[in-house]
């Protein structure tokens, strides 16, 4: 694909300038390297429980967040490290949360599946499939109630679509005209169940039509395509309180979680290898190099910078103490 682009001279037509392009690449790489380190830490026993990696899906979180304002909201399911980092959380505090340490975003009480960051308007980390969709609608309701012009992006997987709460939320958001962008990351498998085995209508974006919600399918491996589709949805939501349903066609390279490392039972190696050919980071990097927006040296600098930040995050998490015992009983009830 990159080869077909003309080098230099002609306008690359990417629709972003060098600074934005560099940021998008950096953000995607940060998530990729962060997740790789997290996987490593998991195998070392530094991270426990479930760990769902975002590797392969980086373009969705990064493309989406790049058109949001800091005061816009985002909410996600349990594969949310990428969304949380993209929204601007400090990788150190995210890693510390994965480690279950006191300096984690949620003081070590949430873990991988429950990242929250009030400072970036990141509303979690929800691990019951489908449950955060009505919550997103509620945030949209509150924005409207308070007379604001923010939006909320609600990320969820294809596995949430058969849940009743998907349909309840789409209906309420459409009925009440709420500024909610429902962003389905269709990575084709809900754990081990393919979309075809789960949905009578496997073209997820079409459910939007049922509810009269503007909806479209977008290449989730193309950060610029995601960016443009989300930008359109954000404009509608900000100006007219119109919800949207976007279906990002994406893929997770790893298994469902670290307990399903290869994801080999329900899909073929060939399929995984084929999908990796449209890697969002490699494609975008090549595109930028081809367009002359970035030089090889820039890429190396970005790589180095990202790797340093991830190493710092790991060191920070390692050094952070465990939460003190008395924290077991704090944050259960908020005192007046």
């Amino acid at each position, binding site marked *: 694909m990159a080869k077909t682009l003309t080098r230099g001279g002609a306008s690359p037509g990417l629709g972003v300038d060098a600074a934005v392009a560099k940021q998008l690449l950096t953000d995607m790489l940060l998530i990729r390297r962060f997740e790789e380190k997290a996987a490593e830490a998991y195998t070392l026993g530094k991270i426990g429980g479930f760990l769902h990696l975002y590797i392969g899906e980086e373009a969705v979180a990064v493309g989406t967040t790049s058109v949001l304002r800091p005061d816009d909201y985002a909410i996600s399911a349990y594969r949310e490290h990428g969304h949380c980092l993209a929204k601007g959380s400090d990788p150190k505090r995210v890693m510390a949360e994965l480690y279950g340490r006191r300096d984690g975003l949620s003081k070590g009480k949430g873990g991988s599946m429950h990242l*929250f*960051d009030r400072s970036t308007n990141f509303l*979690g980390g929800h691990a019951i499939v489908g449950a955060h969709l009505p919550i997103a609608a509620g*945030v949209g309701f*509150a924005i409207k109630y308070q007379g604001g012009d923010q939006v909320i992006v609600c990320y969820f997987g294809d596995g949430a679509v058969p849940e009743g*709460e998907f349909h*309840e939320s789409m*209906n309420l958001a459409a009925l009440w005209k709420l500024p909610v962008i429902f962003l389905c990351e269709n990575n084709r498998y809900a754990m081990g169940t393919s979309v075809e085995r789960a949905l009578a209508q496997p073209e997820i974006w079409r459910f939007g039509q049922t509810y009269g919600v503007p909806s479209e399918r977008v290449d989730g491996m193309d950060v610029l395509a995601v960016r443009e589709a989300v930008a359109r949805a954000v404009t509608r939501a900000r100006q007219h309180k119109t919800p949207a349903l976007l279906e990002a066609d994406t893929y997770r390279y790893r298994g469902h979680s670290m307990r399903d490392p290869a994801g080999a039972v329900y899909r073929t190696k060939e399929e995984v290898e084929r999908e990796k050919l449209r890697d969002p980071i490699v494609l975008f990097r090549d595109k930028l190099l081809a367009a002359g927006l970035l030089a090889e040296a820039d890429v190396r600098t970005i790589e180095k910078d990202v790797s340093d930040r991830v190493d710092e995050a790991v060191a920070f998490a390692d050094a952070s103490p465990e939460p003190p015992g008395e924290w077991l009983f704090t944050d*259960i009830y908020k005192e*007046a």
Partner: protein
Amino acid sequence: MAAMTYREALNLALREEMRRDPRVFVIGEEVGLYEGAYKVTQGLLKEFGGQRVVDTPIAESGFTGVGIGAAMVGLRPVIEMMTFNFALLALDQIVNSAAKMYYMSGGQFNVPIVIRGPGGPAAQLAAQHSQSMETYFYHVPGLKVVRPTTPMDAKGLLKSAIRDDNPVIFIEAETLYSVKGEVPDDPEFLIPLGKALVRREGTDVTVIAYMGMMYRAMEAAEELEKEGISVELVDPRTLRPMDTETIIGSVRKTHRAVVVEAGAGFAGMGSEIVAFVTEQAFDDLDAPVERVTGANAPMPYARNLEKLKTPSKDKILAAVRRVCNANGS
């Protein structure tokens, strides 16, 4: 003070809190145009408009989630369950989202919501519409659970629930909506959550009960008085957090206790009360604590069977007599 029904007291509490705080809104099935299936929200749509009195389609999980999301970013929703039986459809939202959000987020996002509506035994509404629901909720850390017995409590506790920064499950009763009582007019009249009330002082036995069972226990107490048994009645009012101190204090005074609850006995409220009374006041007891509970059966429709399912005054009388006749030290 004004005499009003339990229903009117709730309505007044909602009105006062909505006037006081623009962040408070009411959401649920038939709360607006229809003015509430049980008319608790009567007149609210007219006074506050559709933005703050929000009719929803039948989607309990959906609109409960909406309330939770709105609460996370600064609003204070009062979610009406047409009846608490329907709250089971939203149980995941209540237990996994509302109750745990503050904890999971390390204290970043609290969820100030009230989920209110009628629950408990009703009149011939059969198994799905007539049952005690509090057990499903008071087990969960992060929730507060309130059961207001009188119109005064209905007003004072609902106002406190709305002002509370945590999710509060507020279960009323169909059978009490028309009960009349004195209610303070003061818009700042509040009853703190987590405080029990001694409704009747006595010296021989403590009877712990709430809602319809409290009224039944009162009748029993009057009768027992004539037999020379002096009954102290304690109403927990809030089941979580439970005011164990007041209950234990009363038991230390009377040395005997009977718990009455409408719900089935197995792992019920009575079990918990018996447990902490035994743990904390064993040496003060002159008799084993008795429980009078609903039968361990679903609620039947037939009038005679329904009567058998719910604790009767006679059962309360018998239990009190038993503990009072037990040989104490």
